[in-house]
Every structure is written in structure tokens, then in C-alpha cells.
């Protein structure tokens, strides 16, 4: 990149010949600002910065004596943005140094900001503020499903996504290698194989079977449920895989609907709910992974329970109570029960999940075969005698959907040449078509979101909208709207955004925000120590994730204020969560809004189980990890990571030292204190929640510990404001709802555009905040405002 030489001046010359520097910086500042305040800039650095950040005493690794001012160079620009922000927030110069007059600081800030803004805007006009981004794993899978109508899982074909600024949509973090392309080729082949198979097979017989009570009772196996009379019962027990049903082993991988008939509990009190799981897997020690199909609440009333799930070939179904809050059979003497008529073992007295029979049906989790055929072949029945130009027409139709914009025959010429070659070498019509589609699905036009610098055209807007709100490609309606030019018009765009947010596919955005922004993708990363947290079970984990999803959904649906992210007067709960959170009188199975009182210590996302779990490891919590997470993801305060030579705290659960003691030694060191003053407040406030999100007043220490140390959540904010507990902490944060909204807008923008807002995008965010303040920064209002912003509507 070419850099104009006058910008390359090293302020370092300042120390040697300050006159000379003054003139250079002045020249620059004159061109960028009003011009009357130019000399003050160097004075500002000399008077307030150089003492600590110059020459031999370059504190914080910042040596202003040796730092050029070159806004056209991104990393240099970032340094100056950091300097700008430290001064703007009043953090620098530090309180014990001489303070600049407000006007001096303002002038300095303006002199730094203008050239930076100018450089960014020029760069954006030329290149766009983001690079072309590749579909991530989820987007790729969804898009393939939409293009072809197939439903097979494709994410496992591709390597894990790379994350940047919290999201898997950020272009600069994405790399391409031939290994990746090979995977795309393989995924396209598998999908096309499946699509053509289905399009040709019509309504071929799919597996469907009703397993009667008698059938279920025929086999006797180690971990099988018991067959008592005409019921099948899986007992509440500690034995793994108890409840596996060997008869249900599937011969073919696919989507299935599992229905338990008359599912109910035995040995429970009337109305007492016990949480059960349905899972699939091999179900024995050599292959311990069981994939959850769902969780449900059962009591003494028989009900039908249905679950849709992908089952791998050779895997079978397991249905059982999985509730660690109820009594269990301790020993392993549940094995090999031969049926109540022959086996004289006494019936256990612990709760058991009973069902009369089970239905297993192979299904399609999406369009039927006719629709798959329509997506491949259009409405005309296809046969081998079709003229070649039909193939061209079909390929054009297919490519226009896959590339998410109309494709001309000319643009398709190279694709058609390949098709022509195939025809000439005697490849069949269908096979030729399939190969043509294969090419389309490996094209950079399909795999990348390709946007031209400047204002986006309607089709690019359509794709941005659909990947933002649905994590997939635009549907026919949206493409038609793009064709009609409706998406450049604010009013009609708004109608589409509302339509899309109200569609079931809007779960794509909710899941992406939960998984990426709130890290819920890591929900399985650690398993809680079963000795310390015996109450943790699978229904709880599944419910926790569902809680966060439902909560975000409600904020969007009802346009609730963003401040709800910090605290809300309701929580989205089912019975299992309510029990965990100690909230009385909640017994429903589905996740529903439940009104909260402050003494229940819930509300907002920051005190939701899933968020608290992913910010802890399975054994201990760390105020540092949680504090950094809350600052960065919810408060919009960037926390610089610790210097590399500072070792992390060595966790100790023996009960001798508290985390506060360990941390206080560390935080009082000057170099650590600057950051910990921000990290620690939310971190300590959240110490009242254990690794699985339960409320605690004392720590659970290892068995050997004689005493359990008390939790002490009190702390003070960087401003000096003190709080005693999480409730008071939340109240302090809620005093500034604008900051909560600012951060959320920033996060949405990063996710939606594939690039973190830059220095010059800040004014766009401020405009959004001004426009949405009257609506208390409602979440849906903010989504609309982001979509309508120039940042979203330009590359």
C-alpha cells in the first residue's frame, strides 16, 4: 500500500527537534481539521504523554517517540484509535499526572480522529469495509438444504469455523486451502447423490414400525428396560445406557420420528414430574457417545411423546429417566431382566419411565421427494431424450438460485462448455446435469458472498438479509423482491425484515447469536464434576440452552428493551430449570415466561445457566474469565488480554484459599490493576453462581476440605461505585441503557456484515442509538436500524 510521505512522520522527531515536528503534524492537522488549533497537538503529546510513553520509559509498550502517525496503515491506525480512546475516556493521562484542559483534549482528539476517519472512508469507498466472506458451516449446510431440498447433515464434512470478534461470519479470519475445497467437493457429491436418488425414487418405501409391548419384551439384554406386564419401564438409576432398546437399531442413517406411547412415571407422587431423555447411539461402553433427541417431563398421566432426530446407521434408541434430582437404583442389578412373568426380582421402588409401545418412522426433515425433483428438474418431467438446450435452461435456473442472483447465459458459458463436453462423450442427460450442478456448487460465486464495493445492489442486500436473519440463502419471495428493486426501498425492506423475523427460520439468527456471541457452542466443552455437582443432568443442560434461545426470541418478537439482556422481570423456564433456580410453582414442560422477584437472583442473559456454564470450567469458576466475557460481550468494554508473561491463577478447590485472596495479590500489582479494575466487578458479582449456574453462598470444595469457604460477591466498579451483590451490580449497569444498546448494536453489526465496526462506523452506531432511544432500544427496533444503516447497505 502506498503511503503519502507526509503522513509517515515519526512523532519521535519530536524529542529531537520539536519545532520541525510541530510543523509536520500541524500541516496534517490543518488539512483535516479547522486549522486554528494545530500547535496544541504536539504540545499535548509532549505535555501529557511522552513522559511515560517515550524513549526508555515506554509504558504499556507504547513508545510515542517511535510511533508514526499513518492512518492509511491499519495496524498503525489501530494503535492511534487506542490512544484516542484512552484519552477520550479520561483514562489517560492517569489521575496522578497533570490533566489537560477539556478543550486541549478535545482538540487533540479531533486532530487524531479526522485523518483516521478520512483514511477509513477513502479505503471503504475503494475496497469496501469488509472482504468477501465464505459461508460458514451452518450457512453452508442450510444453503445446500435450501438449494437441493435434501436434509442430510453436512457440517461434519467441513472443518470447524474460525472465529473473530466473537463471530464465525468475519471474513478476515477465514482461510481457504485445497483441503477445504476437497471437502466442499465431497459435500457437494454427497448432497447431489442424495438429491438425485430422491428425485428419481418417487415415494419409495420408508421404514416405519410400531413396536408393540410384546415385541419390545422379546429380547433380554444387559442394559435393556424391564418388561413388566404390558409395559416397558426404564428405571431411574446411575447405570449408563440402561433403557437402550435393542430392537430399534436402524439399518439406514436418516431422519426419524420417535414416538413413545402412553409415556408416564411409575412410583411417583401424583403430579410429581420426572425429567426423562430420549437419545440415540450404540449404547454400550465401546461407543459412549449418545446423541440427545430430546428431553421431556413425565408424571403419572400417560402421554404421547414425539421427537424428530437424525439417527446414524447401527444406532438405537434409549429412553429413560435422566433426572438427578430424584431417587435412583444404586447397584447394577437391573441387568438382564427376563420379564415380570419369569423374573422374580422385586420391582424397584424408584421412579421409572413406563410406556406401552413405541413407533419409529423414517421421515424427511424438509421438502418431500417431489419438491426435491422440482428443485433439480423444474416442473417438466425429465427424460434422456431431452434436447441439450433444456440442460442449459435447467443449469441457468439452478445457478441463479445457487448464486442468489440472476445468471446470464453468457456468464454460464464456461459451465455450459463442460456440459457440452459431457454430452459429446456420451454421458447421460441426468448425469450431465448432476455434473453441471456439481460445478456450480464448487464455484466461488456459491461459496462466497460476493459484494461489489460501494452501495449494495438488491440481490446483495437480499443475501445479507437472509444470512443475517436466517443463516441461509434468500427464499423465492426475497429474490423476487430483489428483482423488483424493493430491497433498496426502506419501507418495503422493512416489511421483508418483519416477515423474515416472524418466520420459523428466524431461529437461524437466534441460534447463531447464542452459539457465537454468547459462546453456547461450548456448552459441552466441559462436563461438571459429578462429585461436586451431582444435580447436573442432561435435561438441565438441554433446558439451559433452550432457555437462552427462548429468551432472545422473546426479546426479538416483542421488541423488548435491550436492557433486558442485563436484567429482566421474567425468565424463560420449564420445571427442570425452575427447580435448579429454586423458583417455586413452575411445573410446565415447555419453556414459558415466568415472572421473577429480585430475591430469585435471575433475569437477563448474564444469570442464565447456559451462559454461566460456558464461562466456567467443570470444577471452578473464575471471576477473570466471567468478568472478561461480560465486559466484552455485554457491556461493550474491550479487555486487553493479560500480558503473556503473567501466569494464570492456579485453581485450588481444597478450601484453603479463596479466589478473592488469590486474585487480590495479582490485581494489586500496578500493571494488572489497570485492567482488573474493569474485569473484576462483573466477575465477582457472578461468583454467586456456581459452574452449572446454580445460586450459591458458599463454595463447594473437594471432599477433603473441612470447611466450605463463603462466597463474597461484593466489589466496586472502576468508577468507585460499590455493590454488595449481583442485584446491585445490575442496577448500576442499568443506569446506562444506552451503553448496553451500543454494545448490542456493535455485535449485531459484526455478525450481519462480517466485519467489526470500525472507528468511522461509530458515528453510524451513535445515529442508530439516537433514532431508537424513544423505543428504549427495542431489540427488533435495533435489528431494523442496523439493516437500514449505511454500514449494512454498503460493502
Amino acid at each position: 500500500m502506498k503511503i503519502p510521505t507526509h503522513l509517515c512522520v515519526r512523532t519521535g522527531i519530536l524529542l529531537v527537534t520539536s519545532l520541525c515536528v510541530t510543523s509536520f503534524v500541524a500541516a496534517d492537522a490543518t488539512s483535516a481539521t479547522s486549522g486554528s488549533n494545530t500547535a496544541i497537538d504536539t504540545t499535548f503529546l509532549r505535555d501529557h504523554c511522552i513522559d511515560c510513553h517515550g524513549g526508555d520509559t515506554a509504558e504499556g509498550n507504547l513508545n510515542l517517540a517511535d510511533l508514526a502517525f499513518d492512518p492509511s496503515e491499519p495496524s498503525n491506525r489501530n494503535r492511534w484509535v487506542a490512544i484516542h480512546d484512552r484519552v477520550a475516556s479520561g483514562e489517560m493521562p492517569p489521575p496522578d499526572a497533570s490533566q489537560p484542559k477539556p478543550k486541549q483534549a478535545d482538540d487533540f482528539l479531533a486532530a487524531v480522529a479526522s485523518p483516521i476517519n478520512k483514511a477509513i472512508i477513502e479505503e471503504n469507498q475503494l475496497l469496501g469495509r469488509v472482504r468477501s466472506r465464505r459461508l460458514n458451516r451452518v450457512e453452508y449446510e442450510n444453503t445446500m438444504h435450501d438449494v437441493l431440498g435434501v436434509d442430510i447433515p453436512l457440517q461434519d464434512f467441513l472443518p470447524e469455523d474460525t472465529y473473530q470478534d466473537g463471530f464465525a461470519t468475519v471474513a478476515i479470519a477465514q482461510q481457504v486451502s485445497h483441503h477445504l475445497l476437497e471437502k466442499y467437493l465431497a459435500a457437494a457429491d454427497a448432497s447431489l447423490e442424495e438429491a438425485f436418488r430422491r428425485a428419481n425414487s418417487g415415494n419409495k418405501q420408508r421404514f416405519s414400525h410400531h413396536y408393540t409391548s410384546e415385541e419390545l419384551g422379546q429380547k433380554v439384554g444387559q442394559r435393556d428396560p424391564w418388561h413388566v406386564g404390558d409395559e416397558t419401564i426404564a428405571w431411574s438409576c446411575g447405570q449408563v445406557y440402561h433403557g437402550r432398546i435393542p430392537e430399534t437399531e436402524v439399518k439406514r442413517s436418516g431422519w426419524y420420528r420417535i414416538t413413545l406411547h402412553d409415556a408416564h412415571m411409575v412410583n411417583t407422587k401424583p403430579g410429581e414430574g420426572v425429567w426423562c431423555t430420549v437419545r440415540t447411539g450404540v449404547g454400550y461402553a465401546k461407543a459412549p457417545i449418545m446423541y440427545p433427541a430430546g428431553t421431556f417431563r413425565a408424571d403419572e398421566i400417560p402421554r404421547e411423546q414425539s421427537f424428530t432426530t437424525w439417527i446414524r446407521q447401527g444406532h438405537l434408541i434409549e429412553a429413560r429417566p435422566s433426572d438427578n434430582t430424584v431417587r435412583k437404583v444404586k447397584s447394577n442389578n437391573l441387568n438382564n431382566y427376563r420379564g415380570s412373568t419369569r423374573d422374580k426380582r422385586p420391582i424397584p421402588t424408584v421412579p421409572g419411565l413406563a410406556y406401552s409401545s413405541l413407533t419409529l418412522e423414517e421421515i424427511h426433515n424438509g421438502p418431500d421427494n417431489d419438491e426435491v425433483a422440482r428443485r433439480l428438474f423444474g416442473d417438466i418431467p425429465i427424460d434422456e431424450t431431452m434436447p441439450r438446450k433444456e440442460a442449459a435452461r435447467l443449469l441457468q435456473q439452478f445457478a441463479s438460485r445457487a448464486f442468489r442472483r440472476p445468471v446470464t447465459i453468457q456468464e454460464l458459458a464456461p459451465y455450459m462448455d463442460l456440459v457440452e463436453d459431457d454430452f459429446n462423450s456420451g454421458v447421460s442427460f441426468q448425469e450431465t446435469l448432476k455434473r453441471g450442478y456439481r460445478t456450480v456448487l464448487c464455484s466461488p460465486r456459491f461459496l462466497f458472498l460476493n459484494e461489489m464495493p460501494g452501495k449494495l445492489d438488491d440481490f446483495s442486500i437480499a443475501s445479507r438479509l437472509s444470512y443475517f436473519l436466517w443463516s441461509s440463502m434468500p427464499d423465492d419471495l426475497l429474490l423476487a423482491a430483489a428483482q423488483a428493486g424493493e430491497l433498496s426501498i426502506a419501507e418495503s425492506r422493512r416489511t421483508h425484515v418483519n416477515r423474515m423475523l416472524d418466520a420459523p427460520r428466524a431461529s437461524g439468527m437466534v441460534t447463531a447469536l447464542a452459539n457465537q456471541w454468547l459462546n453456547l457452542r461450548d456448552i459441552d466443552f466441559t462436563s461438571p464434576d459429578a462429585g461436586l455437582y451431582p444435580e447436573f443432568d442432561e435435561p438441565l443442560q438441554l433446558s439451559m440452552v433452550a432457555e437462552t434461545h427462548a429468551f432472545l426470541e422473546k426479546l426479538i418478537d416483542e421488541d423488548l428493551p435491550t436492557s433486558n439482556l442485563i436484567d429482566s422481570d421474567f425468565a424463560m423456564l420449564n420445571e427442570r430449570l425452575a427447580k435448579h433456580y429454586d423458583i417455586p410453582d413452575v411445573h410446565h414442560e415447555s419453556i414459558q415466561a415466568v415472572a421473577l422477584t429480585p430475591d430469585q437472583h435471575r433475569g437477563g442473559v448474564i444469570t442464565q445457566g447456559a451462559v454461566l456454564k460456558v464461562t466456567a470450567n467443570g470444577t471452578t469458576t473464575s471471576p477473570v474469565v466471567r468478568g472478561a466475557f461480560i465486559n466484552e460481550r455485554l457491556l461493550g468494554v474491550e479487555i486487553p488480554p493479560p500480558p503473556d508473561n503473567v501466569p494464570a491463577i492456579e485453581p485450588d478447590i481444597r478450601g484453603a484459599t479463596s479466589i478473592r485472596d488469590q486474585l487480590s495479590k495479582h490485581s494489586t500489582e500496578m500493571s494488572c490493576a489497570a485492567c482488573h479494575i474493569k474485569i473484576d466487578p462483573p466477575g465477582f458479582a457472578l461468583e454467586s453462581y456456581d459452574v452449572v449456574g446454580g445460586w450459591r453462598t458458599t463454595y463447594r470444595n473437594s471432599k477433603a476440605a473441612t470447611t466450605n469457604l463463603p462466597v463474597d460477591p461484593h466489589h466496586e466498579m472502576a468508577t468507585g461505585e460499590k455493590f454488595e451483590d449481583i442485584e446491585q451490580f445490575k442496577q448500576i449497569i442499568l443506569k446506562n441503557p444506552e451503553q448496553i444498546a451500543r454494545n448490542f448494536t456493535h455485535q449485531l453489526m459484526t455478525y450481519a456484515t462480517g466485519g467489526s465496526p470500525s472507528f468511522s462506523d461509530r458515528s453510524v452506531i451513535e445515529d442508530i442509538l439516537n433514532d431508537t432511544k424513544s423505543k428504549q432500544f427495542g431489540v427488533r427496533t435495533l435489528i431494523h436500524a442496523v439493516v437500514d444503516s449505511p454500514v449494512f447497505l454498503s460493502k
Partner: protein
Amino acid sequence: MKFSNAKLNRRTVLRGSGLAVGLPFLDAMVPAIARAEEYETPRRFVSFSLGLGLHGPNLFPEQSGFQYTPSPYLAEISDILPDLTICSGVSHPYVAGGHRAEGTILTAAPLSRSDANFRNSVSLDQWMAKHLGAETRFPSLVLNASGDSSSPSYTENGSMIPPEMSPSRLFDQLFVDDAPAAQELESARIRHGRSVMDLVADEAKTLQRTLGAGDRDKLDSYFTAVNELKKRLEANEAWISRPKPKVSKPESLAASVADGLEKQRAMFDVMALALQTDSTRFITLHLGNGGKVELDGVTEAHHSLSHHGQDEDKLTQLAILENAIIGEWANFVRKLKSQQESAGSLLDQTMVLLTSNLGNASSHDNKNMPVLFAGGGFRHGQHLAFNKNDNYPLPNLYLSALHRLGLHQDKFATSTGTMTGLELA
């Protein structure tokens, strides 16, 4: 693609004799092909990497040099201690970030905790495969035994190579010939794949013109990837019609294999066969995030145990588990040692590394990485103890490994030279 005569002959011999590999076959064959000194036995490199470290106090001996008393972990594998070097006080310079550093195990790319725009660089195995991998059916194997789809192998533009996670699929790829019809189908698929790559390369060029300068780099790397894949497909096509070596299936592959220890064992078994049959010379096996493992005395998941918080019970369980993990690695080393090639044992020809990005998983510390380095014809049996507080660069070991393969470069990643104290036998 070129094949040395020696190798072609060996394959012919193998096929003709129907010999179950696992016997010292090379020695028997070499005289028929060439005099031993004319036949250069290939050198190999294998890395076994862990995402959760090894508990330092159980691993590192107190004394340094050749006369050290084995640590608790090393005492369990005392028979192979003469064949390996344990290093302490080593780590990758400028690498921090706890779990995030998993991607740098073999790349040693500086990863500051404050570096949000981190971009990885080429991993040791891929660098070796790039220069020396073309002669075998598989330039390298990238494997994972924990089912978490991560690998320490990175391409030159810092893109992670997705690992193979199924030992039986790996076995099939290496040793089971497809039926002629399937071979033909695969050939057709590959041929068409090459035309597809030609076309999308042109598409990338077109896009490059229309999308403007900002996307040039992106499309450039896409373009490079396309060309590399074309080369790969070409090489693969050449291999399709060549019969794969015939070996007997290891017992560890018989049943469905659980992630973790069992898969680790099965992978090691197939890896040994892959090296013996010269199907590849560079292998990485990764054991990432540890789930629950079926093992007597271990009730907690591996990751949970690694966060032991000094709890005695957890440390006991962790030791059982880590002993078992090291044990499987040691079996692999023993197996290589028992295989004779013309130039000595297969182990003499194969460098086998065990390491992890975490020196202390409980506190997520990346310093003081565990390092066991066996085979390769080095003078082993010692504890190379460096400064625990001011670590010695591990990339120096990587540079030594490169030199051993004949790649006499000055530097790998942040190396400062070859490893002090590590000499040829």
C-alpha cells in the same frame, strides 16, 4: 509423479508374495532390489499431540542428563526410556492463550493472548510433507482420536487440515482396494473434479476483476487452493489403479471404537502399518478435548480432571488416565522398535514426538510443555532439562527434526538453532 524403482519393486514384491506385513520384510527384499547401502531407507516423523497437557509433577524427572531417576509416569515405561529423550523447560516462544494455542503445537506461530488477528503458519509435518511427501500414496496423514475434528496440522496459509477421525475408514483408505467398478467411478469423479477446478479457477479470476482490489487476496488464496487441489487430484488418480499394500487388520479395529483411549490404540496400530508399508512418512495424531473415558478408577471426564484444582482424588484419576494415554504411545514406540528395516529398526528411521500446547492444563499455562521425543536415530536416554522459568525454544527441536530429514534450513518458526544437547547416535 515419479516413483523410485525401489518402491515400485517393493510393492510388486509385496503383492506377489501375499505377505502379511508386520514381518521384517524389507531386509528380505533389499538384496533382491539393490545392495542395502544403495537403498536409502526413508526417514519419517510422527507427532502425537494432546490438547490437555500432562501433569508436570508426574512427568518431569528431578535430575537431568543420562543418569536420571524416572518420574512416576516415566517409571511406567522404563523399558523404552533408552529410546527417548524427555525435555523439560521448553515451550514455544511468544505463544500464550491456553486452549487457543492448540493450533500452534506444531506451527509454533507466535500467539499472543492479545493478538486478536492471529494467523497460523505451516505446521512441521506439513512442511515436511510439502518437501518430502510426494513419493508415497499419502503425503501425510492427519488424524484425530478424540472425535473433536481438530488437528495440529496447518497449511502454509494457516488453514487447519481437517483430520480423519475413524480408524477403520483410515484402514480402508490405506489398505483396502476398491472394486474395479468403484475405482472407475472414483477415477471419473476425480477427472471431472479436475475440470471443475479448472472452471472455478477461471471464475475466481473473473470475480477478481469485478470485485475490486479488496478481495484480491481472498481470491488469490482461493486460486492457489484450487491449483493445489488439482495437483492432488492428479496424484490421487495415478494411485487409484495401483494396488494398495495388503496387511492383516489389527484386532483393535474389530469392534466399534470409542473416542479416546480405544481410538488412540486403533489409530496407532493403523499408523504403524502405514509406516511399515511406506504408505506415508508423516503423521500427526491429535487427542483434543477429552471426554469421558472407560477406564478403571476414572469416573470423571478428562477435561474436568485436567481442572483438578489440586484435589487429591482428581489428581489420582488424572494420573491413571494420563498413564494410559502415555502407555498407548509407548506401545506404538515399542512396535516401531520391533520392526526391522535394512537400516535398523523402524524406530531408528522414525522420529516420534509426544507433546501438548499446555504445560499446566489446570491454569491453562502454555509454558513448560511436556515433550517426549523418541527414535529417529538420535542419542537418547536422557533428560534435557532447561530453565523452567525462562524456557528454551521447542522449535529448535523441530529444526533438528528437519535437519534429520535432510531439510537443512536455518530456521523453523521461532527457532534459534538446532536443539542443544540432542545429538545423533
